[in-house]
């Protein structure tokens, strides 16, 4: 490529009108050619003359103070000022930005509200679960205290222990009675009793030496394995207590036994 051709490209390039191919050809030569450097500078200078034909126009005075003020506060602030100006202007001339921003805001707000509602519901559910667990915990604590008390009674050296034996209708049944005289109570552990029908309960009878008829005691059901544990309070513990027996009665118990069929029976 001749220098005349390169000069033609430099002229076009000064106007920003050279093609990519022309620029490539020119600048591949340009680096090593001082003459072309000067030609390019000359044409760049000449191109700027085209601008000089225009009548100068004063920019708004506010722009001057804005730029100078920004420069005083440093480079970053200048960029910030431009960003602000650009943002303000874009928002002014492009209302769709507002619509987009508003839509985005509403979407985020809605999403946040849904999130809060879900969290509230989750919190309510968790509070209910906590209340249920606290109730269960209190019940377990009560049971634990009772078991501890029962164990304490069973293992006490002053506790009297005797057995109730299975009778004709339930020869395999038995019961162990732990009598805590000081507390007027007994803990009775039943084994191998036949499963009671749903409309009937087992009932304990307290046979006293001083009464012709036994006192009615608490009612109870047995597990499918035929076991049950009963705690009986306010027992007569002196010579009045003669023995204990169990019958099968209508569900809920009766004041007087409706039959003479004993399932377990024993003397103190």
């Amino acid at each position, binding site marked *: 490529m001749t220098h005349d051709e390169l000069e033609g490209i430099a002229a076009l390039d000064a106007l920003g009108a050279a093609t990519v191919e022309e620029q490539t050809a020119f600048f591949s030569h340009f680096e090593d050619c001082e003459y072309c450097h000067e030609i390019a500078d000359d044409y760049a*200078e000449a191109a700027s003359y*085209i*601008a000089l034909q*225009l*009548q100068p126009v*004063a920019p708004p005075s506010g722009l*001057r103070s804005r*730029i100078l003020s920004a420069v005083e506060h440093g480079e970053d602030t200048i960029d910030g000022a431009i960003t602000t100006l650009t943002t303000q202007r874009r928002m002014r001339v492009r209302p769709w930005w507002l619509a987009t921003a508003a839509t985005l805001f509403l979407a985020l707000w809605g999403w946040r509200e849904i999130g809060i509602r879900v969290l509230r519901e989750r919190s309510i559910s968790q509070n209910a679960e906590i209340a249920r667990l606290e109730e269960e915990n209190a019940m377990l604590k009560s049971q634990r205290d009772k078991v501890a008390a029962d164990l304490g009674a069973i293992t006490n050296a002053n506790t009297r222990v005797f057995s109730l034996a299975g009778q004709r209708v339930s020869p395999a049944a038995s019961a162990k009675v732990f009598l805590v005289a000081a507390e007027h109570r007994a803990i009775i552990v039943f084994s191998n009793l036949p499963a009671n029908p749903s409309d009937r309960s087992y009932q304990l009878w307290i046979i006293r030496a001083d009464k012709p008829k036994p006192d009615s005691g608490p009612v109870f059901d047995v597990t499918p394995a035929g076991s049950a544990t009963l705690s009986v309070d306010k027992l007569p513990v002196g010579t009045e207590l003669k023995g204990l027996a169990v019958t099968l009665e209508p569900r809920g118990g009766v004041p007087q036994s409706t039959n003479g069929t004993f399932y377990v029976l024993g003397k103190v």
Partner: protein
Amino acid sequence: MVGAFIIMTATDAASPLLERVARGDSKSFEDLYDRYSPMLYAVLLRILGKPEDAQEVLQETFVKVWTNATLFDKARGSEAAWLISIARSRGIDRLRSRRVRTDRENEAGREITSNGPISPGPSGLESAVQSETRDAVRSALSELPDAQRVALELAYFEGLSQSEIAARLGEPLGTVKTRMQLGMKKLRERLRVMR
């Protein structure tokens, strides 16, 4: 420099404001703004048409000048040419990105009037020099055939490529390219003589 010539001349050469701006002299930056902002604003109005666009790009231009003043090399060209090239480049970039070409000529107008006070603006001597330079440039451009001048202005102020200018004018691409090259060559020679 081959046929070196300097625009803005006496003021430019005697007061290398950009060298002081490059050293962080804010007072020189103010002087630079006062001296060149009307000219650069006129260029940007001509390119972009809309005052708000022109003001925004003018601000970008001066920030770039403040941060990049060390890149100015007075051996390669004048202060004014360097500033104009920055403003024009950013203006064309904005024009292309926003494609705000419609109604530009109507809004820019052939005679643009001031929309604000020039304060403080170029000094009396500087104004006189600028006015003289402007007249010389107008004279040089007026000596070009219309076809060449129009092609140069379409490329310079509208950022059109050779093929876009050819399409706009309905002329063959080769013809347009030749007109642009001849126009630039004559302008360069004419202004060199003027110096």
